[in-house]
């Protein structure tokens, strides 16, 4: 044990030395992350090769050789073999608004702008005057509904069959997202409650909706719903689709949130109880803020899924952006153009999905208050 030749104890203060060369800074990062092992080196080189063989071609096609001014696909092809964005230039109105009357475009645009006004207080939690602003957020669905469909109070009626394009996607997506979260929360709380009837109703609902493809539900909305509803009640097809999409997403949402509820330590429930907080108080103040925070990635995942699933409405004949591809191709002048249209639609969807994803990352960072 007491062998003096081995220095177990520092006999003098050791000086602080700089880190060895090549372990810090840019060189260090590259070494550690890209070339740390032979496998990693091979993968890095392979990735560089793939990027270099694909990206220039895409840039060339989409930007360098692309054509913006032409009246038909043939004209495009004569000018260059790049992307023929002329079709987008000519038809973007339709992809944004469907067959909404051109002179009334200001209404959906205003609704879209107001959407952000309504979103600010909902997303920014320490905004000055948030309380009052939230009242507007609550009223927004009605404002948007009035602006888009009109029909009274001086605004001309626009029927649902004229709605289309990104406008339709936004209507279904925004409504679905904003209603599926609260419904999902209620379902998750019901399913984790110990009231047997409430619990089994939630289980039946969730399992039924999750076990059925969304397309089936959309067909039900399209064809069958009239049978179930009382005679004379016949509500709008877009509204029916919104309901189905919302129910579908809320079943998934419920399971995501239930995961968050289950991940909370039992001690949190007990501490809230021991302080005398009632069920709803402890849910609102203690349990849900934490459970929702844990579930943010899953919630946003469901939101993004819902937003993209709105494209399925083309199956029941609604003119969402994908549904508008067919009429465009039906036009003699643009017959045969495919990639450009889908690329444009993909780009539109990407912007919204990416924004949601970024916001969720920001939210997660902001809500991180250290470990328990």
């Amino acid at each position: 044990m007491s062998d003096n030749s081995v220095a177990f104890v520092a006999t003098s203060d050791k000086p602080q030395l700089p880190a060895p060369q090549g372990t810090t800074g840019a060189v260090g990062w590259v070494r550690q992350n890209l070339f740390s092992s032979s496998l990693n080196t091979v993968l890095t080189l392979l990735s560089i090769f793939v990027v270099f063989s694909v990206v220039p071609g895409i840039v060339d096609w989409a930007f360098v050789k692309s054509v913006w001014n032409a009246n038909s696909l043939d004209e495009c092809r004569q000018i260059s073999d790049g992307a023929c964005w002329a079709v987008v230039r000519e038809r973007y109105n339709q992809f944004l608004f469907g067959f909404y009357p051109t002179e009334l475009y200001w209404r959906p645009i205003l609704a879209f702008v107001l959407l952000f006004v309504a979103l600010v207080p909902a997303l920014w939690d320490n905004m000055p005057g948030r309380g009052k602003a939230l009242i507007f957020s609550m009223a927004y669905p009605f404002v948007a509904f009035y602006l888009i469909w009109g029909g009274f109070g001086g605004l001309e009626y626009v029927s649902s069959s004229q709605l289309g394009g990104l406008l339709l996607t936004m209507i279904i997506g925004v409504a679905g997202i904003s209603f599926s979260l609260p419904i999902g929360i209620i379902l998750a709380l019901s399913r984790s409650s110990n009231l047997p009837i409430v619990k089994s109703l939630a289980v039946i609902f969730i399992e039924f909706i999750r076990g059925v493809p969304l397309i089936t539900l959309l067909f039900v909305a399209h064809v069958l719903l009239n049978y179930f509803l009382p005679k004379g009640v016949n509500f709008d097809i877009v509204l029916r689709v919104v309901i189905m999409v919302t129910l579908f997403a809320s079943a998934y949402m419920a399971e995501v949130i239930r995961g968050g509820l289950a991940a909370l330590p039992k001690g949190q429930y007990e501490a809230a109880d021991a302080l005398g907080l009632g069920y709803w108080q402890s849910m609102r103040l203690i349990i849900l803020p934490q459970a929702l925070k844990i579930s943010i990635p899953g919630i946003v995942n469901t939101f993004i899924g819902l937003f993209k699933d709105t494209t399925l409405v083309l199956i029941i004949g609604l003119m969402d952006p994908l549904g508008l591809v067919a009429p465009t191709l039906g036009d003699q002048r643009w017959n045969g153009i495919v990639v450009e249209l889908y690329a444009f639609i993909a780009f539109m969807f990407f912007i919204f999905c990416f924004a949601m994803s970024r916001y969720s990352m920001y939210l997660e960072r902001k809500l991180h208050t250290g470990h328990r």
Partner: protein
Amino acid sequence: MSDANLADVQADRSKMQISDTDVAIEISGMNKWYGDFHVLRDINLKVMRGERIVICGPSGSGKSTMIRCINRLEEHQKGRIVVDGIELTSDLKKIDEIRREVGMCFQHFNLFPHLTILENCTLAPIWVRKMPKKQAEEIAMHYLERVKIPEQANKYPGQLSGGQQQRVAIARSLCMNPKVMLFDEPTSALDPEMIKEVLDVMIGLAEEGMTMLCVTHEMGFARKVANRVIFMDQGQIVEQNEPEPFFTNPQHERTQLFLSQILNH
């Protein structure tokens, strides 16, 4: 064990007033089962206002279960529990009323990680007692000073040491101005050097006459402040006595065995 830790805190027993007429908690013929397992068997216990009771016993003997029955974190199936004159039944109003008067500290603190220390302390007064925010904050700061961490008020629990978190948990309970405090092994998740800071706060509470039920194996603490030590085994109260006779002259052989194990380890 922790006698040395506590040597500098001279708990003057004579300062602590116990009422001999006011009953704080009365448990009579209480039984509890987990399924078929009889965890608590015929528990009888009367706690006077101002009394400080330490509960000890081997693991699994039902100590936690018993004190958790007092604020209905666990439901008992037979017998009566009366807290501050209110009998515990399945009536939710009564349960809430009792929980308002009974503070509890847990082994793992159970602070709310998404709220600051100050918010942890003001939450229940604001939402349960309907106190104005300003007043709740003043009271919270008062108790945070009492537990000697006012400077941490705006941090989050995750940024505090275990001992600090447990002191916040005590302050959080005190903010509700409880008549009774329950402690379930408040120091057993702490590193040795933090145990003293928490025990000091608890000793201070005892000196001010708080009615306390404390599950702990800190025998030094028991000697200093307890009026009575209760020994539980297999769901029963096997022995209870004043600390001196309890430690020097245990009657029951299970108590003797337990004490020899815990004092000579």
